[in-house]
């Protein structure tokens, strides 16, 4: 979480609270009033006596390295409000006891720990040393046991996060969406941070997205209701996950943000690389590379993800238009899209032909069918064609532009191209698409979803050479 010795922020402390009530109660105890004999050690512990309703004050100790908590109160909550209050006091004002460090000093240091705190801390230190020795001496079943325990702990935390999120969504709908335009997204940011603390990054990302909707122009209430409802659906699914069929349960776990389990279907095929593009996380700390494949024999789509830390691109690079004879292991859930390439049998070679496309109607049907497997799917990979791009006009220099469309060559149907919001791409790529078509038919690979069709790769007629639309 944080380094020892560096004082935490109030947000970091509150992120530990098991629920809303504890957070509020902890915040009430975050002032110096009820506390006495507070102190801390450079090795990363804080302690103090908190006056409660009884005659004896509660003894509270926190080992910051865990963090781990010990308190003499009867509360079952973990951490209890006293531990939270003590941490808040330390975070906001520093701990100054009679012999302690001056207030505002970042490191709790000063008087040695009182006996009731010191004993517990020494015990913990000894146990940590023992486990470290054990770990180096043996691995195996104990590890599996530890992993199972970790998973249980994480599931419990997610459960708490989900309960809190449900509360938040209910409050939203109770009070009405109308107030959201003024509310700003700071409150949602906070909720997202709580979801991160609950170790549910998938929920956190959706919450963040939800918070941005009110500032996204006309039609936002409907979009916000959609997102809130789908988030609610995901919460309910998590809470009832034991009753779900396994594929759907895997999907739910993946959507919440748990790493997907191993052991999926293995498909050997000649995989055509249809697209590859990178996106940066909102905080810019992580690059996600998406690689779309299609099995030439099975017709099956596959999405391979790779990640890169800041300043380093993801390692896997598969040039668009190449074909790999390889084994793909599909992860459970996610509508059977996520795959990892396990073994390659030959060097990649250019594909001699453009893939065959489907009509706009068939593209939407494919997306609709996939929603049965994963109702949270934003889009589905589709090769569309032959279609004609119809650029949107501009009224003056207003950003409010008429939509771009991809229209079937036969008939009068078309799919819109999303120009803003999630899943939209830079305009330069669309101009490229228009230039390539010159008003004539092209085949396009892209992501087809409820917002429309986002083009990624184009083939001109009579050409097997794919053109990757620019993403810069």
């Amino acid at each position, binding site marked *: 979480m944080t380094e020892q010795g560096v004082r935490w922020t109030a947000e970091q402390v509150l992120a530990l609270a098991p629920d809303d009530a504890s957070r509020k109660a902890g915040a009430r105890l975050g002032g110096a009033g009820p506390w006495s004999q507070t102190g801390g050690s450079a090795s990363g512990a804080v302690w103090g006596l908190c006056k409660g309703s009884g005659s004896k004050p509660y003894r509270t100790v926190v080992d910051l390295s865990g963090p781990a908590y010990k308190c003499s109160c009867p509360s079952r909550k973990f951490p209890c409000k006293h531990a939270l209050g003590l941490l808040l006091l330390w975070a906001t004002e520093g701990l100054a006891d009679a012999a302690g460090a001056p207030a505002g000093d970042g490191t709790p240091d000063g008087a040695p720990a009182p006996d009731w705190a010191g004993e517990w801390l020494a015990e913990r230190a000894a146990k940590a040393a023992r486990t470290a020795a054990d770990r180096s001496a043996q691995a195996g079943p104990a590890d599996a046991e530890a992993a199972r325990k970790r998973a249980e702990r994480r599931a419990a935390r997610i459960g708490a996060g989900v309960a809190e999120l*449900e509360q938040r*969504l*209910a*409050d939203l*709908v*109770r*009070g*009405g*969406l*109308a107030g959201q335009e003024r509310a700003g997204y700071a409150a949602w940011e906070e909720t997202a941070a709580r979801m991160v603390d609950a170790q549910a990054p998938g929920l956190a990302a959706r919450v963040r997205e939800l918070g941005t909707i009110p500032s996204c122009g006309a039609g936002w*209430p*409907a979009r916000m*209701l*959609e997102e*809130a*409802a*789908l988030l*609610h*659906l995901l919460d*309910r699914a998590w809470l009832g996950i034991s009753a779900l069929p396994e594929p759907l349960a895997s999907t739910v776990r993946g959507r919440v943000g748990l790493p997907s389990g191993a052991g999926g279907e293995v498909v050997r095929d000649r995989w055509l690389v249809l697209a590859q593009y990178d996106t940066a996380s909102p905080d810019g700390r992580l690059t996600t590379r998406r690689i779309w494949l299609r099995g030439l024999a099975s017709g099956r789509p596959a999405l391979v993800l790779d990640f890169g830390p800041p300043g380093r691109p993801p390692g896997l690079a598969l040039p668009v238009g190449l074909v790999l004879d390889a084994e793909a292991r599909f992860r459970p859930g996610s509508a059977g899209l996520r795959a990892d390439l396990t073994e390659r049998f030959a060097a990649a070679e250019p594909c001699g032909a453009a893939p065959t496309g489907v009509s*706009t*109607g068939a593209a*939407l049907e494919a*997306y*609709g*069918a996939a*929603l*049965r497997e994963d*109702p949270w799917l934003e889009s589905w990979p589709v090769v569309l064609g032959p279609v*004609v791009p*119809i*650029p949107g006009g*501009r009224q003056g*220099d207003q950003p409010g532009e*008429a939509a771009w*469309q991809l*229209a*079937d060559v036969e008939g*009068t*149907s*078309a*799919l*819109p191209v999303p120009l803003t919001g999630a899943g939209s791409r830079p305009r*330069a790529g669309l*101009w*490229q698409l*228009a*230039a*390539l078509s*010159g*008003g*004539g038919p092209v085949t396009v690979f892209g992501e087809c*979803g*409820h917002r*429309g069709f986002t083009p990624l790769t*184009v083939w*001109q007629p009579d050409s097997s050479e794919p*053109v990757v639309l*620019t993403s*810069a």
Partner: protein
Amino acid sequence: MTTTTTTTTTHSGTNTGTPTGAATPTTTAAVPDWDELVGAALLGTDRRQGSPEVLLGVAAVQTVRRRAGLRPAEAGPRLEPAPLDPRPLPPEAARRRLAHLLAGRTAAGSGSGRRGAAPDLMELLPQWLAAAGRHGYRAPAALVPALLDAARARTDLRPQALALAGTRGLWLARLNPDWRFALRGGSGGAGELPAPTDAAGVERLWQEGLFAERVALLGAVRAHEAAAALRLLSTTWSTERAEDRLMFLDSLRVGLSPGDEPFLEAALADRSRNVRATAAELLSALPESALAGRMAERALVCVGPEGVTPPAECDAGMLRDGVVKRPPAGRGERAWWLAQLVEAAPLSCWQERFGGLGPAEIVALPTAEGWAEELHAAWCRAAVRQRDPAWSEALLGSASAPPATGPATASLAERAKLLSILGEEERAAWVAEFIRAHGLSEAFQLLGVCVVPWAGELGRAVVEALDSAREAGGYPWSFSGVMGLAERCLDPAEAGLLDAVAVAAAPAEPGGAAAYWSEAFQRLVATLRLRATMHAELTPQGP
């Protein structure tokens, strides 16, 4: 996209399809329609005693059902397809190279202050475009938007970029207001001009077009038939605004011929002084014109073997022929009038006046005290205006003589103009000799008028001078201008010659001028190799 009833079953159970499209009547009242749900959510369930969980649950089912039941939208009006461009595509390596050059444009800023041993790609784009144009290629469609963006940012690229983008570029530019420049002729794009033979179309555009379109139209008609352009211009001449008249007149510089004389002669009586002056200037560039003859008469009276006698007055005739009466501050008026007369007189009139001497001898004659500078400067301007190589050469004198002792002008700008009148080979030879004699510090402007790629002799002179400057411990940054020119203009075949220099330039210790020199030479070699590669890539592959 619209939603219609579907029987898609989502995992969340219900499959009683509820239409939300206006076209289909509602069949079940059990599930409220979407708009009602949004309305309820906007107001909040507290106002309606509803349960938020129930509302969210129903909304979730509705959302997934709507998404699963999406149908395509009605297609908007389709575009007229772009006309076919019959020109071939460049070979694949060249297509990749163009993409790379265009991407380099938007990458790190180029230009001043750049360091490093890597070539400056943006500076190579004009060459690539010119070479591709010579091969008669068309731009790959996928790169047309980037090409238009580049041309939008740099007007000097426009003619070549638009030519390469061709019909596809114009088709695309009509769809995006950012590229409107491509539709204006004049900037080099063969915009929407009617054929010069299409009398009605020409007439309509001339009457209704924007100024830039009209200038382009005039140029197109003039290229087709000079007389027709003047007839077109005459139809509206008296009603044009003065600054437009000036621009139209100026556009006659291109393809100026004796046939233009009557029109120009009439313009000598124009209301606007600037128009009158431009007309006089153009007429004096036609040595056979009546104005040139009148000027010759006046000039021959003033200048001859016996000496120089400046005109005593500026009479009405001189005024009508464009002589400006009031001198600029600091010049005597008689000298000012003399200069204008000599500048506008055809150079051919002097040979006879000086007893059959050629330009070089005339220029070398000792001239009456104090008049040499005035007279030579006027001859320089006349040589440039009349594009007379013999006089230009004579006035430039020997390249190895110190500029200050030269026959005519020490001004580098004037010399560069005179040089541009010489033949390509003479020009390169003269500048090469100049560099060998005087080094590079004053050669930048002169190099700018030499033909690219530089002839072998000139290239070698530049490289040797750069190397001497390095050995002499010169400040490398004072040569960065010439370095940049060399990167763009040296013949790529000279890269081998440079290798030795680059090795010699390798610094003993990092930092300082030596390292900069070394880097600059490396960049020079790398750029030359890249240019050679570029040209090789553009060579058509096989049949």
